[in-house]
């Protein structure tokens, strides 16, 4: 077994463990069932707890995140492979921005709710969710800059500046004002350059020249008279100690990093970032403060270690949403090496499967999960097949939707099983028409036979058919099973008889017997039905002979036998006479 990366943190379950009860547990698809148990019988009813790891899935505002990102995910999968890579890159960047805007929208709404919430604990809960989303967006944005957009040297720093400024403004509006007044962005001449009018080397030369000049001015004590101006110029030349003195304004080590790079190394190349990142973090945080998980994740990003970023995020967050979507996007950008895991699928598929499985446990969001499973080529289908049968089906409409999902994916096993559940339920509630319509959908001949048997039983008990609207209008569905065909035809026989169309009725009855689709138990009934027909004048010799022959095959009660024999003989006599008579 692998070693754990972090020590698992204990979780307290309220009101358990009293009265010296033991605890048993059982894993569920997304949660844990914990129950109190004891060897001895004791008074009082034991408690059962359902422990869920992911509470975010229940938040109504985060649900919007899940739904909107689902749309973006599906759109991403549809991007065709044959588009040239330059166009694809811009598409991927815009998709990344879409994801981020969805995160920000959620964040804003949560923030509004946190401010307006009456309940203190609710407000703090919202606040926690806001800070998690903030961190997520921060990481995503950095990944977009470094990996998806893959900014080259020169524009890299610009992007990083934007990144820091964007997130800085979230945290501290007041500091932003102060900062902007000191920001070198105000120096127009400084920013003339990286708009692309000059090449990187030209800019580099000019910048060094300017830097040397500032340095020289400092040495010459040109600014000695004005302390503030001296500080500013010291910052501009990238004197780290001076910058560090402005710690409160900089609030984070990555802000310090970017500031430092701005003044010492504006043409930084991506591979060189990590050295500065590590040292900035050390300088900023100092020897006593340990780095937080977020800091470590950002550092891994600066070191271009994608797998470490994903791994650390997976551990730190309690919901797979972020890592699944980010990894999927990075995989589309072809940035992940095919890193095969022990159980055959790759990292992207593993994360998407985990996320989707979590979604599936939700009473409502399971529909989103289906699309995610569809885009996991190795195991998606199997996961879907196993999970889709477990959805509780309270109404027919829900069952119809689940069936449509299964039929679209040719999951015939699941279709049959779900239809059978619905048909059985209908049968139990005496809804024979519904039961039949479910059997027709599943093309379940065996169940159709069962339903027909039920009808025939009812007929034998009551002497008449129920649900005539169904039986009279079976249509081609009649052919689904022999028993069903018999039922339909038998009902037709009754109808013909009722309409006094005796010769047709007799022919039908005969064909039923000849085709041998009548169940054995009903042969007696059929022959008894034939009795009154034999009295009718229109029945012909041939028919009578045929009926007679069937009758002799049977082994039946004696009184009835006598009656039938008599009837048949009389009919035969009548028919012979009639056919032999010549009308003059």
């Amino acid at each position, binding site marked *: 077994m692998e070693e754990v990366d972090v020590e698992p943190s204990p979780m307290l379950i309220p009101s358990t463990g009293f009265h010296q009860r033991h605890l048993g547990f059982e894993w569920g698809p997304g949660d844990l069932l914990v129950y109190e148990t004891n060897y001895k019988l004791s008074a009082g009813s034991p408690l059962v707890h359902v422990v869920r790891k992911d509470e975010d899935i229940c938040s109504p505002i985060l*649900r919007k995140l899940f739904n909107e990102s689902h749309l973006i995910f599906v759109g991403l999968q549809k991007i065709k492979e044959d588009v040239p890579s330059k166009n694809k890159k811009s598409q991927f960047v815009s998709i990344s921005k879409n994801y981020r805007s969805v995160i920000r929208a959620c964040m804003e709404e949560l923030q509004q709710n946190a401010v307006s919430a009456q309940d203190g604990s609710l407000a703090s809960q919202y606040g926690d969710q806001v800070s998690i989303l903030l961190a997520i967006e921060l990481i995503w944005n950095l990944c977009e800059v470094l990996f998806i957009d893959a900014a080259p040297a020169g524009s890299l720093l610009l992007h990083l500046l934007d990144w820091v400024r964007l997130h800085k403004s979230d945290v501290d509006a007041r500091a932003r004002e102060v900062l902007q007044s000191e920001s070198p962005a105000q120096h127009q001449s400084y920013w003339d350059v990286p708009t692309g009018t000059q090449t990187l080397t030209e800019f580099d030369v000019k910048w060094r020249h300017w830097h040397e000049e500032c340095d020289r001015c400092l040495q010459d004590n040109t600014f000695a008279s004005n302390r503030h101006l001296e500080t500013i110029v010291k910052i501009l030349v990238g004197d780290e100690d001076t910058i560090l003195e402005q710690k409160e304004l900089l609030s984070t080590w990555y802000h310090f990093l970017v500031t430092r790079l701005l003044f010492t190394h504006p043409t930084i190349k991506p591979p060189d970032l990590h050295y500065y990142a590590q040292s900035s973090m050390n300088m900023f945080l100092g020897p006593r403060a340990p780095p937080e998980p977020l800091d470590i994740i950002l550092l891994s990003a600066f070191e271009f270690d994608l797998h470490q970023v994903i791994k650390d995020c997976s551990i730190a967050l309690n919901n797979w949403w972020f890592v699944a979507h980010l990894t999927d996007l990075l995989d589309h950008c072809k940035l992940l090496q095919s890193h095969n895991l022990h159980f055959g699928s790759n990292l992207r598929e593993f994360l998407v499967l985990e996320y989707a499985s979590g979604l599936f446990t939700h009473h409502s969001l399971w529909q989103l999960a289906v699309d995610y499973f569809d885009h996991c080529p190795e195991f998606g289908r199997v996961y879907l097949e196993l999970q889709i049968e477990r959805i509780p089906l309270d109404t*027919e*409409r829900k069952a119809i939707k689940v069936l449509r999902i299964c039929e679209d994916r040719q999951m015939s096993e699941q279709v049959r099983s779900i239809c059978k559940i619905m048909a059985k339920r209908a049968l139990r509630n005496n809804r024979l028409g519904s039961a039949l*319509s479910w059997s027709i959908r599943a093309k379940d001949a065996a169940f159709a036979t069962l339903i027909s048997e039920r009808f025939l039983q009812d007929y034998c008990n009551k002497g008449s058919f129920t649900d005539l609207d169904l039986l009279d209008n079976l*249509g081609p569905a009649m052919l689904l099973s022999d028993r069903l065909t018999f039922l339909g035809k038998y009902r037709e026989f009754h109808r013909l008889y009722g309409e006094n169309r005796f010769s047709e009725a007799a022919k039908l009855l005969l064909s039923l017997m000849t085709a041998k689709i009548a169940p054995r138990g009903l042969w007696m009934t059929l022959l008894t039905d034939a009795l009154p027909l034999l009295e009718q004048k229109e029945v012909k010799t041939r028919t009578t002979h045929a009926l007679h022959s069937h009758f002799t095959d049977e082994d039946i009660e004696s009184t009835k036998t006598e009656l039938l024999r008599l009837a048949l003989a009389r009919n035969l006599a009548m028919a012979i006479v009639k056919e032999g008579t010549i009308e003059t």
Partner: protein
Amino acid sequence: MDPTAKYISQKISRTRWRPVPAGLLQQPEVFAAGSWDNESNRVSIWSLGDNDSDTDGEFDEEPRLLCDSEHDGDVMDLQALSLAHVWERAHRYSCDNAPCTAVVCRSPELVSVGEDGRVILYKADQTEVVRVIENADSSTIHAVTFLRTTEVLTVNSIGQLKMWDFRQQSDSPAQILSLTGDRVPLHCVDKHPNQQHIVATGGQDGMLCIWDVRQGNTPFSLIEAHSAEMWEVHFHPSNPNHLFTCSEDGSLLHWETTSGSDMSTLLQRGWNSRVVSHSGVPLAGEDDSVVSSWLAGDSSKNRLEATHMLPSQTLSVNSLDVLEQCLVCGTDGEAVYVHRQLPV
């Protein structure tokens, strides 16, 4: 113009406009949405805010929640009524409650149908039900609509349309219509606003059928509208040359028929559908100019055009409602789409 989307954190089973007083030519502003598949379902009322657009004619108001209330079980259908009442256990099996699938009202009368195959008539101000047609159907009744004041039409899951006349004492339908061929379950039905004998239905296979209930046993037109179950079909209440359908396949279609001056065949044009039309015998005694362009005829002057109303493929569109120039629909992707400038 694209419809505006609003995510409301619940899967939407029904959306309905609040009716505007006739003759005022106002655009509807308030709609109700019902949710399904939640642990606690809700009926919520939303307002679209100011009716006046800005100078450039853009409506960018998102729907705002006015109020909502809890609802036991999935919200299956919504209708606007001025009084409120609850009829408990109206639909039931012998040992359990049965889902009620649809409700229609023509004030003050209400009719509901359910999975138990019952048709129940209520009056809005009476606590007792007025009439129950037991065993109206051996299968589930999916939808119901009023044809005349005392007549309703129901559709069921074995592909039949049944007409019920409440003036008759017997519990059997006045008429039964169905497709020859496969008995595909029918999910929705709507009556032509001006001509009560013309009815449109949609079913499990996504086929849109137009029927003339006075004539014969088979529909006049069959159109392959969608690739999955059609959940709702609506004639536009004031301009019945327009029809709207929504489906499990995630699309919402706007059908428009342009008619010639005489009776003409309904032909499908371009867009991957085919029409099977039966030879329509000209109805005796009917004024030609009044005959609806939906019924089949001879020449090819008629055309039917369909347009997608939603910008991209979504999860199933469960419900739609049209009133004047506004369309509202709800999807399983937990989004409500509102379109305020329908080309009708």
